[in-house]
């Protein structure tokens, strides 16, 4: 019997991910770890809102108007109920409305970024790979749109969409219109970066090889170029997410976003602002702090990701 050395088992997928450069830099960046912790906790809170939230703020049956304006952590003088973060004017638990509001904020944010990303990456690939008139038209439109701040473009799209939808559907459609408005206002960043990267990639040898063996342009763009331009897209997507969440909150705060029947964080802040003068600060401050925590930690995460994925900085 001879001892055959046992070959070491190939590292599992998880193990390889853990040991990758990206995770190495993640494990050595306390700010990134802290902010991703905050983001994960907030997202979990939003996703699990129906399970965690002590009250369902949108079913009128569980509301008690007598509970209105209960300060945080104190027993209501009339009913004796205690609410962690207090209640608003209608006796809704602020903690629960924040959890549900975050659902809408995050949903709109993620969907808008997804829309912007799909649109921007597609147009950027097309512009970079096809060139010619297609490129000129796409990039000119991008230039014009870039002249205007995204939030203004989103407002305009919201206004126009509102004009087109019949009044009885407006509240229902508001969320989708928001996604459309923010998504359409934000695609330019993606398109510009992807176009630039595509221009570099398309002259490399592996693309020429793919072309020679008869791959269709569509398949070259999707299977060969796209995977190689994804890094910057990921960075922009993260930063865009923070911007989209802020944009959504801003629009909702201005009253041209999520309706009071389906409040997002921005709508909650709008509602809370009315009670600021009469001393019920908790209706305003808690949603505001949540929004700030969300936006700040996503921003910090994006900052870290940009540095971590940038080979020049290694």
């Amino acid at each position, binding site marked *: 019997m001879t001892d055959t050395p046992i070959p070491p088992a190939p590292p599992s997928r998880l193990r390889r991910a853990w040991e990758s450069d990206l995770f190495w830099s993640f494990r050595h960046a306390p700010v990134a770890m802290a902010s991703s912790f905050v983001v994960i906790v907030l997202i979990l809170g939003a996703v699990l809102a129906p399970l965690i939230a002590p009250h369902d703020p949108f079913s009128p049956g569980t509301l008690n108007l007598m509970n209105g304006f209960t300060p945080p952590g104190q027993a209501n003088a009339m009913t004796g109920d205690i609410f962690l973060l207090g209640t608003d004017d209608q006796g809704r638990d602020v903690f629960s409305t924040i959890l549900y509001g975050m659902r809408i904020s995050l949903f709109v944010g993620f969907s808008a970024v997804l829309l912007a990303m799909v649109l921007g990456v597609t147009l950027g690939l097309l512009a970079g790979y096809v060139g010619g008139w297609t490129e000129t038209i796409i990039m000119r439109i991008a230039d*014009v749109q870039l002249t205007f701040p995204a*939030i203004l473009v989103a407002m305009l799209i919201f*206004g126009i969409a*509102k004009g087109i939808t019949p009044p009885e559907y407006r509240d229902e459609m508001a969320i989708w219109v928001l996604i459309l408005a923010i998504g359409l206002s934000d695609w330019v960043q993606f398109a510009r970066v992807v176009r630039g990267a595509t221009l570099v990639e398309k002259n490399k040898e592996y693309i020429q090889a793919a072309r020679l063996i008869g791959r269709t342009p569509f398949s070259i763009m999707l299977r060969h170029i796209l995977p190689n331009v994804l890094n910057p897209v990921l960075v922009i997507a993260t930063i865009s997410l*923070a911007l989209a969440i*802020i944009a959504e*909150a*801003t629009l909702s705060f201005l009253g041209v976003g999520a309706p009071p029947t389906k409040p997002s964080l921005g709508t909650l802040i709008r509602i809370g602002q009315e009670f*600021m003068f009469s001393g019920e600060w908790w209706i305003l401050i808690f949603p505001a702090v949540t929004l700030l925590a969300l*936006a700040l930690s996503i921003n910090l995460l994006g900052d870290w990701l940009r540095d971590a994925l940038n080979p020049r900085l290694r």
Partner: protein
Amino acid sequence: MLAYIIRRVFQSALVLLVVGLVAFSMFSFVGDPIDNMLGQERTQADVERLRQTLGLDQPFVVQYWRFLEQAAQGNFGQSYRQGRPVAEIFLERLPATLELAFVSGLMALIGGISLGIFTAIRRRGTAANLIMTASLIGVSLPTFLIGILLIYLFSVELGWLPSFGRGEVTRVGGWTTGFLTTSGIKALILPSITLGLYQMTLIMRLVRTEMLEVLRMDYIRFARARGIREKSVNFHHALKNTLVPVITITGLQLGSIIAFAIITETVFQWPGVGLLFINAVQFVDIPVMAAYLMMISVMFVGINLIVDMLYFAIDPRLRVDRTAGGH
């Protein structure tokens, strides 16, 4: 150089034409103007007559041309909601926005440049680090939250400053100004901080980065070696060369100050064009929306053009590059 300027002017005109098309399409596709102008009781003859007087029976291109013609003369029709000429409403509201934009722009510029220089020169100091961290939070803080927090602190808790409106205004010809009364100036403070803070952090970070780059250059080291005083090196040699990008960005930010004034004006119920626009979006008042869009784009395109030319005037290297390169 002349060719470049002509090309830029041409491009700008094209952008305005496209924006005009968007503004015009809003009229054609969002709601029927006839519906908006005639009430419930109308006959087919009324509709036809109005269609003819409004020129709605003409082809699209003719209508578009007439819209541009009217817009160039400042005529955007009647506000659906207020029933008054849009141009009149705008002229009434414009001074409030311009005064706000002017004060906050000035604040952002002065504050941003001086803080930027400070944080660049004292790069390792505690104060500079503190300012940089604060600026990161400032960038993440949405404009409307800054406004609300300022109101909460200075109006509700301390009661020092008013939380809404322009205060007492004085009429000077066709212009209304808040600069001449104490209440007017007091009312300006919080909104202009709200509006200017973000731009200030932006300018500060930019000046700091540029300044750090420039300070690493050989000619700065050489100036130091020649024994020129530190102050003179920093402000005379270094600062001058950081100003080119600062001017560009500041110029472009001027446009977004006007746009972001929408948010500030809503928070403080400031009676400017931004508040007018947001109300127009809420009530789908198309003529006001279209006019605002046109006004903003003329402003943006104009600013872009001026900034580009300033670039030429300031940086002699560009003159050679652009004309030789052809692009």
